[in-house]
């Protein structure tokens, strides 16, 4: 392994590759910061450029973009409550309220330190435990995945709904319904397309994210423009406040980071789970760990509440490389795009990657750590300047958000049906948000919809249609029991409030 690390270091520390990490992190931060544009879009944009490089350099650039975009997504989550990617949705729960209190600089610094710490710890995990951790994900079967996804959706409904669990669960079902539009993955039978050819391939994830977050956020800002309470809460982007973190906040972060890193990394290793589930579970876990006084601060600008999802989503980013590099199975949508790029280079990821292309395997792992350092050294001091991109007046910011949303969709399909669809979904989402129907559960459900149906299909086929698969395996049973506990806790909390 030492030899591998040295090979990786020598490749990653070449001048070209260091430059690529820096360019990738910077470009990723800018792109990820723009609402609606996330790492998937950023990496996809980079693929044509990387074909001019050797595979290691290309992958290093994409890894840099990935981390930069995740960090950039956190910035727009905190400043605008408009997450660039689902993985940073949970960051907005406490980051945005903190920014509204005039502590935007501090919130961004906490996010940067947590991301760095989470990324560093998980990069070490990846380095040491990559081969053996792949066995953990191998132990998971379809019923376990199905149960894990149910748990993720229940957890997000419980923790993001401000006490309105049923509303959040309705959004989960709506997200899953939207995910079923288009061709069935196995039989190719078209469903819910109503003979419209534009819907045959389903609704794009980017479209849903742009509509329910970027565009809907822009419309909500305008819609509530006359609300005096709301107006008073608008963040002054020109006054981000200090980025210094005091001793008390550092202690809080120090408690949160180790447990969120471990959780994030382990969730990231599981194919399909990724940064989104990791960040929500970390947020939920942290809420249960802290004392009653701290618990009350959750959703109102808690340091724990901000640090936990930020640590976990970066840790999960590293974790998601484990199944990609060792099994050839992408751990998230973003690593799926990277898998496509690897195949384009003529490299088949899998257990043999160690032997056939050790320099690629180890240089990507090494460049992750270098990427973390670059993000901290380059981005943290530049936060006040980078954030100025978002510090434009409302009259300019709103049309620009709409412009980026529409352009993102137009670039994907070059048809106007998708733009009409996006506007329609954004208008509905704006009204739903007005009455506190949360959007994060809808997004997560939409992302997981296809995989959830696939795992349910396999589970039911294996058990010959019987629901026994839900309790046959201990892992499935344990995950389901945790889910039932969360639902039970929600019911208990409601009854307790009533009494």
């Amino acid at each position, binding site marked *: 392994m030492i030899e591998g690390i040295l090979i990786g270091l020598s490749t990653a520390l070449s001048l070209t590759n260091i430059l690529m990490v820096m360019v990738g992190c910077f470009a990723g931060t800018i792109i990820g910061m723009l609402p609606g544009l996330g790492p998937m879009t950023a990496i996809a944009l980079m693929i*044509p450029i990387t074909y001019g490089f050797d595979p290691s350099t290309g992958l290093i650039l994409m890894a840099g973009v990935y981390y930069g975009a995740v960090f950039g997504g956190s910035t727009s989550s905190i400043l605008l409550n408009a997450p660039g990617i689902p993985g940073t949705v949970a960051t907005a729960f406490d980051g945005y309220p903190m920014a509204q209190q005039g502590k935007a600089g501090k919130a961004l610094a906490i996010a940067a330190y947590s991301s760095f710490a989470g990324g560093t710890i998980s990069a070490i995990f990846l380095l040491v435990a990559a081969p053996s951790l792949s066995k953990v994900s191998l132990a998971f079967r379809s019923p376990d995945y199905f149960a894990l996804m149910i748990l993720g959706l229940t957890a997000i409904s419980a923790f993001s709904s401000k*006490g*309105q669990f*049923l*509303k959040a*669960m*309705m959004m989960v*079902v*709506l997200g*899953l*319904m939207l995910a*079923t539009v288009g061709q069935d993955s*196995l*039989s190719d*039978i078209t*469903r*819910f397309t109503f003979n419209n050819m534009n819907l045959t391939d389903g609704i794009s994830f980017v479209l849903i994210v742009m509509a329910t977050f970027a565009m809907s956020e822009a*419309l909500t800002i*305008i*819609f*509530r*423009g*006359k*609300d005096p309470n*709301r107006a008073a809460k608008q963040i002054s982007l020109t006054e981000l406040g200090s980025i210094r973190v005091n001793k008390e906040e550092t202690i809080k972060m120090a408690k949160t980071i180790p447990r969120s890193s471990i959780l994030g990394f382990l969730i990231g290793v599981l194919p399909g789970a990724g940064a989104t589930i990791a960040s929500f579970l970390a947020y939920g876990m942290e809420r249960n760990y802290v004392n009653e006084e701290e618990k009350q601060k959750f959703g109102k600008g808690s340091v724990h509440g901000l640090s936990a999802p930020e640590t976990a989503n970066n840790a999960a980013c590293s974790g998601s490389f484990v199944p990609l590099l060792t099994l050839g199975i992408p751990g998230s949508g973003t690593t799926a795009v990277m898998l496509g790029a690897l195949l384009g280079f003529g490299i088949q990821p899998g257990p043999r990657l160690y032997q056939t292309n050790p320099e690629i395997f180890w240089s990507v792992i090494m460049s992750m750590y270098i990427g973390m350092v670059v993000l901290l050294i380059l981005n943290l001091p530049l936060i006040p300047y980078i954030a100025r991109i978002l510090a434009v007046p409302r*009259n*300019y910011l*709103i*049309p*620009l958000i*709409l*412009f980026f949303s*529409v*352009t993102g969709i*137009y*670039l994907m399909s*070059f*048809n*106007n049906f998708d*733009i*009409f669809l996006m*506007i329609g979904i954004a*208008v509905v989402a704006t*009204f*739903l948000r*007005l*009455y*506190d*129907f949360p959007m994060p559960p809808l997004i997560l459900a939409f992302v997981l919809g296809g995989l*959830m149906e696939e795992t*349910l*299909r396999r589970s*039911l*086929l294996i*058990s*010959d*249609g019987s629901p026994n698969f839900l309790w046959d395996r201990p892992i499935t049973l344990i995950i389901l029991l945790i889910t039932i506990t969360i639902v039970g806790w929600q019911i208990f909390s*409601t009854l307790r*409030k*009533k009494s």
Partner: protein
Amino acid sequence: MRISPTKFISLLFLVLSVFYLYTAYNIQVFAFDENAPFNARTFPIYLGWAGIILSSLKIILPEKVTTEVNHKHLDYKSIIYLIVISLIYAAVILKIGYFISTSLFLFASYYFLGERRWGLMFILSFPFVAAFMYLLHGLLNIYLRDPFLKYIGVMG
């Protein structure tokens, strides 16, 4: 009897779920798949029932937390303007091309949101879109369909 907006939305969701379930039952599956433990209908049927149960619960159960929205504080005029401009933008983007439609969309949006600094409005529409197009098309080599610019010979 006054129905709260939340319950009204839940009622709409109930109607949507019933329609979804009806459509799910009518999905055409292959004959050999008809009695399989899982076919293209199975998951949507579960979802339809889940939607019906959840929305019914929301309608039936008393509301513990009510969401109050003061409609006097909502800026209906601006949002309607923005939506209409966006719809017009979507309708013309293929006909007049990306550059002109996007620039006009941005310019009109700034105007309807109350901006009157004409110089800045111009810079942040036409030259801004041109620079963005150059970044995508010229530097990143990402194809951007624009029949108008192609017609006047600016784009290849």
